[in-house]
């Protein structure tokens, strides 16, 4: 069965600093996607970044980047130059045609 593990229930970072959220997963499938979603207090789920498993290059989206280690089944999210608006719950997610699994989430607080 697919599992997604986020080992950090809560994290905090000072504004303008860098923080890394960890995520590991387990799967036997070869075609899948990995995502990080952000859920602010408004409860809307917002896509932060995506990674196709068949791509070796790490995805980057402005201040957000991932470190995708396929062999280790690791998919961490790095947020650079943290902003107050980054305060939210972050979910790591695994998607394939037959499975959709979310981690338990990491609550990130950006402090001024």
């Amino acid at each position: 069965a697919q599992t997604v593990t986020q080992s950090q229930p809560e994290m905090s970072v000072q504004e303008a600093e860098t923080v890394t959220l960890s995520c590991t997963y387990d799967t036997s499938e070869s075609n899948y996607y990995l995502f990080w979603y952000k859920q602010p207090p408004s409860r809307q789920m917002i896509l932060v970044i995506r990674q196709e498993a068949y791509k070796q290059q790490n995805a980057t989206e402005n201040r957000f980047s991932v470190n995708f280690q396929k062999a280790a089944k690791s998919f961490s999210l790095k947020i650079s130059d943290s902003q107050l608006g980054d305060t939210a719950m972050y979910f790591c997610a695994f998607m394939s045609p037959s499975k959709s699994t979310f981690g338990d989430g990491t609550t990130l607080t950006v402090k001024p």
Partner: protein
Amino acid sequence: DTAVSQTPKYLVTQMGNDKSIKCEQNLGHDTMYWYKQDSKKFLKIMFSYNNKELIINETVPNRFSPKSPDKAHLNLHINSLELGDSAVYFCASSPLYPLPANTGELFFGEGSRLTVL
């Protein structure tokens, strides 16, 4: 125009009642989902439909019955509501098929908060 819309946004009801949550997407996606987010914020998939065909059916009580009249709609009907059904229910759609041409990204609705008293 809202891409994935759910109604109602809030629902308060008594134990034992039957209720439905409707979901519609105007993105032309073939795949739609229902997720449940509990009070601890854990997000779990309940069902997935691809072009009206059930693809994913996780361990969910059979009091929950999804219905997809067409690929743009996926409704969730819940019978005999229990206290533990209180949660936020998210509908989502995705251009998952065909892989790997599509991104698999989930487009979420705003969620429907169900409170069972």
